[in-house]
């Protein structure tokens, strides 16, 4: 299987790799919530390789900064870190 994106093609191997890297970083965010809350309260953070590579209080600004650095935000976990843990009722 090949997937076209903006003139490039992704195969299953690339998709799997993208999923796994995203998963590792998302798990890291989940585990480090308390620490991240102290440092990045009320900001969006972008994480690659278990490190916060950038943050901003505005989502659009963060996305622009990532693109300027040559990063593709669609492959990177971005989370809003609220000062208090949000309560979700589903």
């Amino acid at each position, binding site marked *: 299987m090949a997937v076209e994106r903006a003139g490039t093609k992704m195969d299953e191997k690339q998709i799997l790799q993208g999923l796994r890297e995203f998963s590792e970083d998302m798990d890291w965010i989940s585990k480090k919530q308390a620490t991240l809350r102290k440092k990045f309260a009320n900001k969006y953070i972008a994480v690659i390789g278990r490190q916060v590579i950038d943050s901003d209080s505005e989502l659009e600004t963060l996305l622009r900064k990532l693109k300027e650095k040559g990063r593709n935000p669609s492959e990177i976990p971005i989370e*809003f870190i609220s000062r208090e843990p949000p*309560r979700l009722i589903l």
Partner: protein
Amino acid sequence: MRILAKYRSWGYRKWAFLRAAIEIRDLKVIGVVDFLLDTGAGESILSETDAKRIGLVYQNFPKGRPATGIGGTVNTYKIGKEVTFHFETVDGGIYSPTRRGIEVLEESSKEKHLPSLLGLEFLEELHFKLTYDMPTESIFLEI
């Protein structure tokens, strides 16, 4: 074929999340999304943050019915395109079902808190069996 969910912290407690690379071929959009598995949701929803992150310009699409939840009523946009969900299976392969359309939920506040949701209709349409084994915190879909 089995797909494992991740039982992880979000806010005050843990929830089951399913990771998928979603692809909207007509729009040349592909990106990874962590969907909260919400059997109480009638529909699957992309959060505003995830939509913007994967480059989906949802504002060009027609508005859907406003979505009402405990937090109030919010706008939705109907992306009437074929959407493929690429999931990693337990054996290291890929399962890639395609379905028609997904909605984007636009939050009214500046801070976008809500996660993307995979709703009950997704499980129904694709005939998934969902297992919550809480003693081992093992949650998975089977088909």
